[in-house]
């Protein structure tokens, strides 16, 4: 019987954390993937608006 698996205190917590942490890491990697996009070599295409006229 696999009843111990759902009955043992602590295993539930491990499941919660395992699911939570893996989702968290996946999401973090997704963010990192967006963040690390190499910028265009051509400065004309950059959208930096440091030249905003005030």
């Amino acid at each position, binding site marked *: 019987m696999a009843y111990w698996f759902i009955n043992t*205190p602590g295993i539930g*917590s491990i499941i919660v954390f395992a699911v939570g942490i893996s989702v968290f890491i996946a999401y973090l990697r997704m963010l990192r993937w*967006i963040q690390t996009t190499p910028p265009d070599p051509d400065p004309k295409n*950059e959208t930096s608006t440091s030249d905003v006229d005030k």
Partner: protein
Amino acid sequence: MTSIPSRESELERIVLAPLRRTSKQFYVVLAGLSLVVLLGAAALANQWRLGLGVTGLNRPVYWGVYITNFVFFIGISHAGTLISAILRVTQAEWRRPITRIAEAITFFALIIGMLQVWIDMGRPERIIFPFIFGRFQSPFLWDFTCVGVYFMSSMLYLYLPLVPDLARLRDRMTDAPRWRHWLYTVMSFGWHGNAEQHRRLEIAIGIMAIVIIPVAVSVHTVVSWIFGMTMQPMWHSTILGPYFVVGAIFSGIAMLFLFMTLLRRAWHLELWIGEKQYNYLGILLLVMSAFWGYFTLAEFLTTGYSTITNETAVFHAKLLGEYAPAFWAMVTANLVIPFAVLMRRQGRKPLGTFIAALSVIIGMWIERFLIVAPSLTRPSLGFMPAVYTPSLTEVAITAGSFALFALLFLLFFKVFPAISVWEVEEGQAVEAVRQKARELAHEGAQPALRS
């Protein structure tokens, strides 16, 4: 990729205005909400000092208003999912100005919902125990799993479309207070927004829009299973999962209407949140009202037709007994009023939808209450029907929870733009291209006709 023009567009000017200027009314509302939150916090402090006895709970009505609030707020959190995710997946253009508001509702409603579980605990200092001694057979653990994933997902889903706007704020609002400029800089994580980065962002948003739909469905299903897994009359029902999900989406859309209309007025967004949004969303609310009515009928007819003593006792308490006023108020608020208002096109305007949405929110809170309390007043081992009257503490904490919800929402949109600027711009570009294409097709067709 469209680069940010150096001069502010009308859209930017309007959307960013509330971030720059603070009106007197804002402080009044802020003070009012804070006062109610403080009142709730004081009531909670008193409850933690004395014990849960300060509530109106008793035996056998062990669960009451707090669990009702928990179900209600988790339900509200489905606003962002449906509106934003489903409309994004189906490429509905009119979604663009309202997705951010919907996503923010999701996020803050989840926070308030999770808070209710803590408020309801007899030993709040042992909140960490389920994370140490968690037993997976308990539906509570399913809730921790699903709500946890949903919380992270909705946070990311709110954050991702915010990034290009944050970069814009970083560049535009150099005159903002330092902490805010710092916040925009850190949160936009060096976004430069070239074509490739935009492509990656769109992919990520696309993934999240799809992922978050089953996650959201799972969340309200396991919330319903807290009740469904027990053998209490009218809880132990297979319909409860889908019924909760339908009710969640229903109340979520209503909350979106409410906040959208208030923010539209306070932040002067009439130009962007307009007829289209009210009309289409109004139809959606109407459809969900019909769905909810169908589920309610299915549930109540099945129970009421039977002669199972335990079940019919609860059924009669709800339809004819002491809960009848609440029950019929719920039916009026969730079915009669939405249908009366939203059936006609003139009803699907800001005022009409505001009334219908307010009615649905009240009705759905009553619905949650009628699921939690009446079943417990008629325990299957029937000795005496129990009475449950919420105490002032419960009223104060509930009011405080609602106020905190509104307060978080208000503060968020004081710092972040209420409308996704880049997405609306994208929509404008799409529209412009379509217009141009139409013109070209028209021009092309003319000579062809002449010859």
